[in-house]
């Protein structure tokens, strides 16, 4: 059970990819990509976790600076990643809107321009 958190993260990444290849709608594919990204956040935060009563890496009047905290570096990585991935998702959705306007369909199997 010591690796359950990492397995959940890997499961989220794989099920996101499964959703992308099985999707019939471009917006559905973009949302599944979002799920796969969430899997990477869970992996990062799980790597930084310390069991046994470690607190968050924020000190104040009740928590004097000490070393019994969870890892702050992976949290910093995950939090900027979340905000930036939202804007990249917006870019993909804007592409999907334009594809719908020009081609009339958003089914990946029917998009004529992508055929070789």
């Amino acid at each position, binding site marked *: *059970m*010591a690796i*359950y*958190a990492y397995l*959940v993260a890997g*499961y*989220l990444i794989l*099920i*996101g990819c*499964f*959703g992308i290849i099985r999707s*019939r*709608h471009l*917006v*559905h594919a*973009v*949302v*599944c990509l*979002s*799920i796969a990204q*969430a*899997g990477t*956040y*869970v992996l990062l*935060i*799980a790597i*930084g*976790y310390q*069991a046994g009563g*470690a*607190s*968050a890496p*924020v000190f104040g009047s009740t928590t004097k600076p000490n070393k019994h*905290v*969870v890892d702050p570096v992976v*949290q*910093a990585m*995950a*939090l900027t990643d*979340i*905000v930036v991935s*939202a804007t990249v*998702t*917006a870019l993909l*959705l804007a592409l*999907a*809107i334009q594809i*719908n*306007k020009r081609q*009339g369909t*958003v089914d990946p199997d029917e998009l004529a321009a992508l055929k070789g």
Partner: protein
Amino acid sequence: MTVLVAVALTVVALAGTAVVLADAPERQAVTLAVFGVTLVVLFVVLQAPDVALSELGIGTAIVPLMVMLTIRTMWKDRQQRERREDRRSEGDA
């Protein structure tokens, strides 16, 4: 690993599966917001309040809003396309 962490991880995995298996994108918008909330609970339990704040604003409010706006724009564009094609075929006939 405590029971709380294990339960939070399992709920996140179930919510993620629900989002992927929902076929219509308009249903995915709401399930995506629920998935965001389960992720926030997981991050708080894993002692990451900054990441939880970030995910709360983005995953529950902004991304589902953009998904719904995209779907409505696509409906509207599709309707207008059909209306234009009907008018064109009426003009030919």
